[in-house]
């Protein structure tokens, strides 16, 4: 194969790969505006599924619960994950480090069903033993989500922290800043991009979780993925397409804004 031929083939593969990633999203958006309820029939443009979505109280309640959980989870996981990431990047060797790295790496790959069942049984056993948590609901979902989100935040913070220029921090210390002051005024601002992406990652992971929440939630605390799952199981539900379109729109907007900020910053530099 000639060099150019090889390059063209490679490019073709990549285009196909991106098409594979985006086709399902295009389908979701397109069919949210389909007047027909059937996915195989195009019945003309319509926004009626959006009207139906916003009058569906079950979906709205679940969405509110999921947003609440996602926000508290993201904040908690960012706190714990930042500590864990700094420990991995900065603290060198200490007794129990190997186990600690394992506790950060394992949640990244652990199948959801294993995390879900083991945490539920833990909550049940704790309730028998110490009377807490009383039943299951928002608080047990939060604990479960913070547990796996922390690992993701830790990895993001660790990679940023180990790439940081230590000399600025050392200069602050040499000039007499207390370690805590140097951390708050020098290190933390430099870590800010990692904290922001860690927070967003934890937020998304929580909003996306069906399996673990199904195990550890109680009656009356159905999250959005749980409601979506029970709906799409029953058949075609175009208002779910409308919901997906809104979500994709929000994500695209956020991504666009992030890119714009990045470009502006690099132009200034």
């Amino acid at each position: 194969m000639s060099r150019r031929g090889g390059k063209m083939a490679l490019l073709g593969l990549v285009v196909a790969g991106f098409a594979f990633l985006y086709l399902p999203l295009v389908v979701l958006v397109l069919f949210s505006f389909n007047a027909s309820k059937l996915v195989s029939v195009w019945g003309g443009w319509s926004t009626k599924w959006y009207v139906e979505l916003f009058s569906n109280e079950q979906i709205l309640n679940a969405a509110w619960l999921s947003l609440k959980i996602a926000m508290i989870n993201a904040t908690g996981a960012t706190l714990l994950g930042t500590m864990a990431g700094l420990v991995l990047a900065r603290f060198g060797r200490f007794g129990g480090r190997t186990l600690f790295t394992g506790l950060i790496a394992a949640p990244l790959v652990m199948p959801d069903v294993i995390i879900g069942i083991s945490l539920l049984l833990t909550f049940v056993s704790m309730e028998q033993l110490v009377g807490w948590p009383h039943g299951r609901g928002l608080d047990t979902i939060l604990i479960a989500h913070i547990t796996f989100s922390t690992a993701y935040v830790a990895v993001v913070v660790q990679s940023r922290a180990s790439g940081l220029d230590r000399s600025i921090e050392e200069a602050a210390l040499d000039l007499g800043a207390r370690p805590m002051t140097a951390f708050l005024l020098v290190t933390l601002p430099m870590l800010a991009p990692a904290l922001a992406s860690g927070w967003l990652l934890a937020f998304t992971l929580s909003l996306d979780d069906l399996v673990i929440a199904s195990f550890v939630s109680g009656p009356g605390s159905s999250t959005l993925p749980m409601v979506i799952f029970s709906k799409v199981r029953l058949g075609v539900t175009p208002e779910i397409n409308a919901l997906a379109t809104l979500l994709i729109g929000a994500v695209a907007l956020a991504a666009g804004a992030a890119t714009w900020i990045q470009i502006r910053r690099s132009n200034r530099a």
Partner: protein
Amino acid sequence: MADASASGPATATAGKSFWFSGKGAVAGIPYLWLFVFFLVPFAIVFRISLSEPMIAQPPYSPLFGADGSYQGSFFNYQLLFEEALFRSAYLNSLWVAGVSTLVTLLIGYPMAYIIARARPMVRNLLLMAVMLPFWSSFLLRVYALKTIMADTGLANGLLLHLGLIDAPIRMLQTDFALYVGISYTYLPFMILPLYATLERLDWSLVEAAEDLGCRPWKGFLLITLPLSVPGMIAGAMLVFIPATGEFVIPNMLGASDTLMVGRMLWDTFFSERDWTLASSLAVVLLLLLVLPIMLFQIVQARREQRA
């Protein structure tokens, strides 16, 4: 924070005092959290897998009788080993996850390669394009795949329209749908670690080889490919391990009799309400995955050392 002796041998000997310093407190909080809510739960699952199902609240027999005698048994594990159904569920899960990982690697490698070799501006845009689907709901994307692959769905409609087939092909509820679903949803997890490895690769080695008369494909096989092995392993583990225990994809795209452990565990727990058997299913799945998880951790730790 700044500690000149951070990675020196001095701190290794000062192991005890670490936990009583301010640093110990910073490390202790996340450590304790993960210990209590990630590690201890495995012990509890194991403990409950030794019980037998019972109509009670919670629905399993106590491990110790009223007189304090031990009443646990390997009853559930015996069931798992004797019933062919469970054995084939584990084997099939490993097979489906393995094939999907391979497909993901074959699609993801060229994508990661092109991204790593692109100009910085294009590179950032392409990386964003890889991440974007991941930020939108996983469940909804699997649902979209379901509508595309349905008998009356878009894929069949297109193939019929083009005259490539005479009757709709059955795609949903086959292993094919599982491969597509897993490769699709896990593709970013393959691309990102591969990209990270390729981006840091010393391309001057490849250029030197080519200057010395090495053909491009040979340079790729002899230099680029071996050097990207760590990224391939990390990506493969990020796909293979969770895919083995996957529940949503077999449930939504697979046949009702698809044998996947994740799905079997879910049904045992939620439909049959047998918490003890579901626990033993989880313990055996975890044991099967211990080696791949350790491999993943080693690759992660190496990467951390290099950084």
